[in-house]
């Protein structure tokens, strides 16, 4: 007997993730362009008397904007794209049902060029089994009160709750 199946990443989640990535990419693009234009304007406006101030301003603007773009690209856009790819893989590929109540372990795994995952234990009547779940969804999964999970290549794709 199966209960209600809840997708770990719903269609709405995927759409929200896509929109978030797009917004950040556009934002970073606009910031880069604005910083570059600001620095060019500063260079164009510089005269003998103001050159040192303008140079310092350009260095500060360029450095701060660059840091924001680097941070956003690495930790928001790239991480978001990886999570999206992971989520799409979970939605598309064949699943395996495993019974047991998910419990988080302390083990984190950074998968190369993919997400950071948390290892979970599936505790039930039988032997304890393990699976992995995206770190961003791990706590939600634990709190959901699932009685079984559906995995793709060992990663939780959906879970079952009593209907």
């Amino acid at each position, binding site marked *: 007997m199966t209960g209600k199946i809840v997708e770990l990443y719903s269609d709405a989640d995927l759409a929200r993730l896509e929109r978030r990535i797009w917004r950040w990419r556009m934002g970073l693009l606009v910031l880069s362009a604005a910083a570059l234009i600001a620095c060019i304007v500063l260079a164009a406006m510089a005269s*003998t008397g103001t050159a040192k101030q303008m140079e310092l301003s350009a260095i500060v603007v360029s*450095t701060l904007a660059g840091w924001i773009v680097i941070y956003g690209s690495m930790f928001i856009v790239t991480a978001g794209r990886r999570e999206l790819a992971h989520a799409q893989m979970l939605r598309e590929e064949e699943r395996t049902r495993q019974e047991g109540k998910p419990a988080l372990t302390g083990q984190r795994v950074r998968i190369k060029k993919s997400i950071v995952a948390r290892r979970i234990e599936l505790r039930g009547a039988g032997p304890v089994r393990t699976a992995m779940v995206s770190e961003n969804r791990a706590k939600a999964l634990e709190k959901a009160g699932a009685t079984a999970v559906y995995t793709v290549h060992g990663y939780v794709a959906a879970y079952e709750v009593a209907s």
Partner: protein
Amino acid sequence: MKFLKNVFSQLHTFLLWALVSFLVWSWIFTFVNDAPAAQKVTVYCNVPAIEDTALAVKLEEHLPEGLKMIQVHSFDYVMFDTGTIDQGDIFILPQSAIEDYDGQFSPIAGQEGTLIYDPATGQGAAMSYIIYGDEPYYLFLGAGSVHLEDGLAQQIAQLLLTLP
């Protein structure tokens, strides 16, 4: 906490970007705020302290036709690149340093140099911008200056000598 952890994990990237930013914009501003030797007069001052930017701005207030800018540098530039001494237009040197540059300067108004600061009287030119040491200072025109023939080097030197 996660933010700081992320930043520290890529600290080398952030530092590298700051360095690249500094080098690139320093180079661009040096390039943008320069002009060909024919369109600028460069003044090198071997003095204890100088407000180089303020002095250059003051001299540019009376920029003769044909010039785009005046550059004023401390003598450290000459130490870093000895080639600049051949291209400098105006030099301000203490008496004790003149021998080191024997033959590098062009006579101005028939003299080897013009006294620009006299410690005996405490009187000197451009004292609002230059702090002189305890010895006489002289102004010279560079022998390699491209502005000897057009008289612009002499013109700026005369202007410098009249500054308070």
